[in-house]
């Protein structure tokens, strides 16, 4: 059975994956493989996103080029390649050209430390399915992401134009605030896994995937990963309704395509990180660890399935949530996500510390935790509920509102009706005065009620 060489229990091994059998051409194969994988995945991701969003909006989506419209994104890429490359006259030339390159290069770096699978036989060499791994691999991912933001910021600045500058400034603030929450949510995984190396984190999830015991951290990560990649509902740096296209407004042709590429690769990156850190990496659920489905090339399939689950989540969120206003977005980041992540990290650290220093086994710890939660629940029942001020009793039936009360006409809300119109009142009055004609019924339309 070809499997990861497990670290000896007790000894502190830097990483679990064993790269001792690698040669230089295996590195080249892996590196080229990662780039090819990312570029083709981006093409598929664009098609996937357009198709899924279209299904959610009850329309067919791209369906002309190729089977199921699969070649649509290829056609778009070709179009972008041959378009005229406009360089803004007032732009800072060097920075203007370098910015999209920074964005793409940094986004390509992350997958080097993502384990796509366990050790496999590659032309007679046993090698883990990841380019490299080291004791601070996850920190390295954060570092790549934070350098990648320079692409956006510099692109926005160097265009010498208002909207891109606003987009760049927004993205700076956004990434700095959401990277804090993201890093803190990852810390609880480090604490439980006892390592920051990706292969060791995957290895630590043999029993249970970390998203279950660390559910709050997982939720915080999900939110901050959307903020980190500038996707709806957090796409404020490129908000179409406000900033045209934000930082890439002045970019065209291939330089624009590079920004676009970087955005989608970043989506793949954060999805891969979520898969690796919270969803067990390449492990399949409910299958024993020594099954043939957990070794060799099979786990790549499970990894990809999880990766695309997160990609679907991105599209789903985009299809259902509206864009935040900027101050709401910042409030969520600084006043909700970061304090919540901090509190959660402290809780996890305390529990882990108690486990480690008292020698309690996992079951006892869990029972104690459940007892604490139950006690808290009971105490919360004992606290008297805050009295809500008794407002005026609503009259039965739909409420009649004066639509001009605020100075301008407003439509009725659910459960409200408009007063009968003067014309209908006149009609009713005239009908009542002449009993020979039929009495027209004055109907009131109840909205939503």
């Amino acid at each position, binding site marked *: 059975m070809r499997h990861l060489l497990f670290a000896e229990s007790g000894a502190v091994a830097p990483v679990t994956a064993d790269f001792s059998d690698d040669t230089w051409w295996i590195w080249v194969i892996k590196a080229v493989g990662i780039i090819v994988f990312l570029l083709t995945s981006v093409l598929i991701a664009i098609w996937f996103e357009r198709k899924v969003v279209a299904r959610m909006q009850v329309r067919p989506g791209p369906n002309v080029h190729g089977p199921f419209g699969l070649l649509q994104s290829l056609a778009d890429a070709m179009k972008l390649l041959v378009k005229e490359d406009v360089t803004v006259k007032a732009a800072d030339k060097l920075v203007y050209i370098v910015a999209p390159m920074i964005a793409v290069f940094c986004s390509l770096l992350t997958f080097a430390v993502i384990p796509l699978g366990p050790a496999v036989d590659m032309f007679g060499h046993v090698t883990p399915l990841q380019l490299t791994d080291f*004791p601070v691999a996850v920190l390295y991912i954060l*570092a790549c992401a934070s350098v990648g933001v320079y692409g956006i910021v*510099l692109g926005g*600045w160097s265009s010498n134009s208002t909207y891109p500058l606003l987009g760049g400034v927004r993205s700076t603030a956004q990434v700095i605030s959401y990277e804090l929450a993201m890093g803190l949510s990852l810390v609880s995984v480090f604490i439980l896994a006892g390592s920051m190396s990706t292969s060791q984190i995957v290895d630590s999830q043999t029993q249970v995937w970390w998203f279950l015991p660390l559910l709050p951290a997982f939720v915080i990560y999900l939110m901050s990963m959307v903020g980190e990649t500038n996707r709806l509902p957090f796409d404020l740096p490129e908000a179409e309704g406000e900033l045209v296209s934000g930082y890439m407004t002045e970019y065209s042709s291939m330089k624009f395509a590079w920004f676009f590429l970087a955005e989608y690769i970043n989506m793949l990156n954060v999805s891969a990180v979520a898969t690796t850190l919270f969803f067990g990496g390449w492990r399949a659920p409910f299958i024993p660890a020594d099954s043939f489905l957990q070794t060799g090339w099979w786990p790549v399939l499970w990894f990809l399935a999880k990766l695309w689950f997160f990609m679907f989540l991105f599209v789903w969120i985009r299809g259902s949530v509206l864009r935040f206003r900027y101050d709401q977005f910042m409030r969520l980041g600084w006043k909700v996500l970061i304090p919540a992540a901090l509190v959660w990290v402290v809780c996890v650290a305390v529990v882990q510390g108690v486990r480690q220093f008292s020698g309690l086994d996992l079951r006892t710890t869990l029972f104690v935790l459940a007892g604490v939660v139950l006690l808290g629940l009971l105490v919360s029942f004992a606290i008297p509920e805050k009295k809500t001020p008794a407002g005026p009793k609503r009259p039965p039936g739909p409420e009649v509102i004066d639509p001009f009360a605020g*100075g*301008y006409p407003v439509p009725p809300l659910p459960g409200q009706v408009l007063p009968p119109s003067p014309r209908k009142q006149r009609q009713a009055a005239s009908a009542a005065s002449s009993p020979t004609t039929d009495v027209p019924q004055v109907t009131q339309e109840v909205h939503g009620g």
Partner: protein
Amino acid sequence: MSAAVLTSLTDAGTTTTAEAALFWTLGPIMVLAALGLLFARKAVHAALAVVVVMISLAFMYVAQDAVFLGVVQVVVYTGAVMMLFLFVLMLVGVDASDSLVETIRGQRWIGLLAGVGLAVVLVGVVGRATYGRPTGLEQANGGNNPTAIAHLVFGSYVFAFEVVGALLVTAALGALVLTHRARLTPRVGQKERADARVAAGGVLTPLPAPGVYAKHNAMDVPALGPDGRPLEHSVPRVLRIRGQEADAREYAARIDRVLAGGGADRPVLVTEPGGEPTPPPTAHPETASHGAPLPGAAQAGAEQQEEHA
């Protein structure tokens, strides 16, 4: 001095060829970038030069087995600190360059003197230092760099670490307190602004586009309302302030002439039955027949435009 540095790099026994190659590649880049910091004309270029130095430095750390330090260097300094610098610099503007006027008299000479003094001290100290044989970080790392650092930070130096942490928190709190401002007026949010706009009786819809009717298509020509009156607030506020808009009264008068049954350019004499010929109606600024919008509309329109900008 340089000879000493050279021996420490090549004579160590732990320095591999690859590491030396990395050093001699990154070294010149770092020096050039550091010089770029000094001589760059634009502040953002200087900041970028610092970023290059920082990332190269991180590569050096990683090459010397200090993986954690290298990565944290990028995350903290490049990703957060320099980004905040850039944030401020970007708001200054693209073409802004530093003012070269000395605010403190003799600042340049004092600075030069201090710099030369520092250089002399550094050369003296570094030149006299004796270098032991480098042993590498193998032993200090103990197989796992972050764990070894954690043992140091939370073991031997935990008090110093906590003190530094408290200092930083105090500094941040101090900045918050010093920049705190008590709110004297109620907060004006989206709803309050909208209500105020409605209460002012202004234009609630987007402003009409200027100059889009049969004879004219120019920014300085007012659009016509549904009643055929020119809408002065359709001309961009900037043109109005500069006095570059076409004369709205002239257009109003033309319209009136057309409505009175004559040509737009040719005045007609309207003969009332049994009376004297009256002159064609012309626009009086007081009667506001030339399509002056509702009172306060121009004001509201201007506010809207500011918000759009």
